[in-house]
């Protein structure tokens, strides 16, 4: 397996902009983040206010027309990015915090945590991801906290497994053993010796996890079981405007396009990083 060739401190922005896929991805991703942060400030109308006839096509004052309740599609599309990025981002963050904690613990100590972790991973992987999300919603309701936690529950075992594998490999290296001989604490060894050397494979996976988090949450929202109206969310907007796809396709296509661009951008950046990682380890 690839042990990392890129220690954490050398991981820079430059890594993903060395090829065209990475460049396009970074530009797209930055553009979407800018839209999500500053877009709502430029929204011509309040995102939850009815301003005209439901299903009105693009017309002066409403560049993307109006949705099924007569709300401005452009304003809602600008508004919908925040929840998508925030929920997806926090789910990914929690996934990594838990996944890395469990993975490092299992890989470094190789105690009872190890078999327990591996079997829990098997159990989570024996369920369709969406089914876990729906069961979580059934059990705990559809708050943002539940959406984020359920997503992290679905995704963390994969991270834990990768971190464990990388840690087991690094833990037997001479520099780790040297640190043990120097009587350094577990925490210091993990932070100074192990973590920088397992960072590569962990970061390589970040793109996939982030896009899965976005897709899972958007899917639950699409099914009407996540964020509730009148929230402006891309997944929710696609489903609630289905009935007016003939009168104003933009009400459906604008959020669909934004989601598609976001996911493609995340995947492009992730793939580009993986390619770069492969390059420096001498693999094709």
């Amino acid at each position, binding site marked *: 397996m690839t042990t990392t060739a890129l220690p954490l401190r050398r991981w820079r922005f430059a890594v993903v902009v060395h090829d065209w896929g990475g460049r396009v991805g970074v530009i797209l991703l930055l553009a979407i983040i800018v839209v999500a942060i500053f877009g709502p400030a430029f929204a011509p109308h309040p995102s939850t206010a009815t301003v005209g006839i439901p299903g009105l096509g693009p017309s002066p004052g409403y560049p993307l027309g109006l949705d099924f309740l007569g709300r401005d599609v452009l304003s809602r599309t600008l508004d919908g990015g925040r929840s998508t990025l925030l929920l997806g981002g926090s789910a990914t963050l929690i996934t990594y915090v838990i996944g890395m904690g469990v993975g490092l613990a299992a890989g470094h100590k190789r105690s009872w945590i190890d078999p327990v972790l591996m079997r829990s991973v098997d*159990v989570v992987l*024996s*369920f369709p991801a969406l089914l876990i999300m729906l*069961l979580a919603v059934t059990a705990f309701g559809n708050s943002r906290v539940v959406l984020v936690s359920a997503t992290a529950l679905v995704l963390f075992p994969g991270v834990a497994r990768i971190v464990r594998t990388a840690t087991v490999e690094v833990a037997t290296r001479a520099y780790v053993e040297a640190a043990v001989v120097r009587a350094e604490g577990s925490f210091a060894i993990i932070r100074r010796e192990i973590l920088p050397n397992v960072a590569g494979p962990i970061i390589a996976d970040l793109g996939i996890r982030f896009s899965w988090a976005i897709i899972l949450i*958007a899917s639950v929202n699409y099914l009407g079981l996540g964020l509730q109206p009148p929230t402006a969310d891309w997944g929710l907007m696609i489903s609630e405007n289905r009935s007016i796809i003939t009168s104003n396709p933009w009400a459906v296509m604008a959020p669909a396009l934004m989601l598609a661009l976001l996911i493609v951008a995340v995947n492009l950046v992730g793939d580009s990083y993986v390619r770069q990682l492969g390059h420096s380890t001498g693999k094709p």
Partner: protein
Amino acid sequence: MAIVSKAAEMATQAPSFDVARSVPHPAVRFVVRRLGIGLVTLLVASILIFIATNILPGNAAVVVLGRGATPSVLHHLENELGLDRSVVVRYLSWLGGMLHANFGHSAVAEAEGRPDSSISATIGSPLADSAILAALTTLLLIPLTLVLGVLAGLFAGRKLDHAISIPALIMSGLPEFVTGTALIFVFFTELNILPPVALLSPGESPFSNLKALILPVSTLLAVAVGAGIRQVRSGMIEVLQRDFVRFARLNGIAERRVILRYALRNALAPSVQIIAQNLQYLVGGIIIVESVFTYPGIGTYLVNAVTARDVTEVQAAAVILAAVYIVINIIADLIVVFLVPKLRTAMS
């Protein structure tokens, strides 16, 4: 967590234990072991589903009837649904019932006093409809994945590869509802040649309106085939770089024969796993796609049950979907082991 670890111990010890003594053949041992693990996983899945659906504050009867229900009505429904018994007893009787294909009674239908509250009676038709959708998709999925993946692998880095791989990369990443919506936009809103919904009237066979199935099947294919192509392609590239392929070529064996006889056969074994992953994906993907096209399958059934907080229906649909998921995994493992003799001894 305790349940999980206990089950895991059972999974690793129980099956191999008594088999090792009586039947020493590694292949049989592997099959029995794999089936045993699958059975335990299924049991753990059923326990987790039961816990998840019983964790609600208040019970199913309260949730369905609402907080304002009179005690006598509530008591009656609790009695009907067996909620007055302990959790363990309820789980065991639920599990026992499922072995006889009895999934209990729909909480909502009981509350409304509808006569058709038996889940076993109502879940059959959505299951059959979903099976048809999945079967049609599978029928197209396997040849498409293999042919396109192998072609992309053979022509790696050339125009044909790009023409296959780039769309595959994009399609495999997009969520089903985005792909499905885009297809509806193109083929219904713009071209108006295909219907945007695959709604069936009760008792109507999906085959009576095949045109309506084109878009749902295409949506599932777009995501699953896209993901499969990438994996088959890289498998093919890897096999083509192996020594035995190089030596076959150096020996002057015709390229056609090298590919069909040497490369393809060896690239096929991992493809079984890839296709199994795609079939497993269908179990989750079908939930979304059925919802996009309002197709009356098990996915729509599950989503409606979750929306109505019909706990017993959620349990039934979730257990069935989880079981299908696990069974696909087992079958794939068994097929792979019988295709690649090497693995038979390696795994035992």
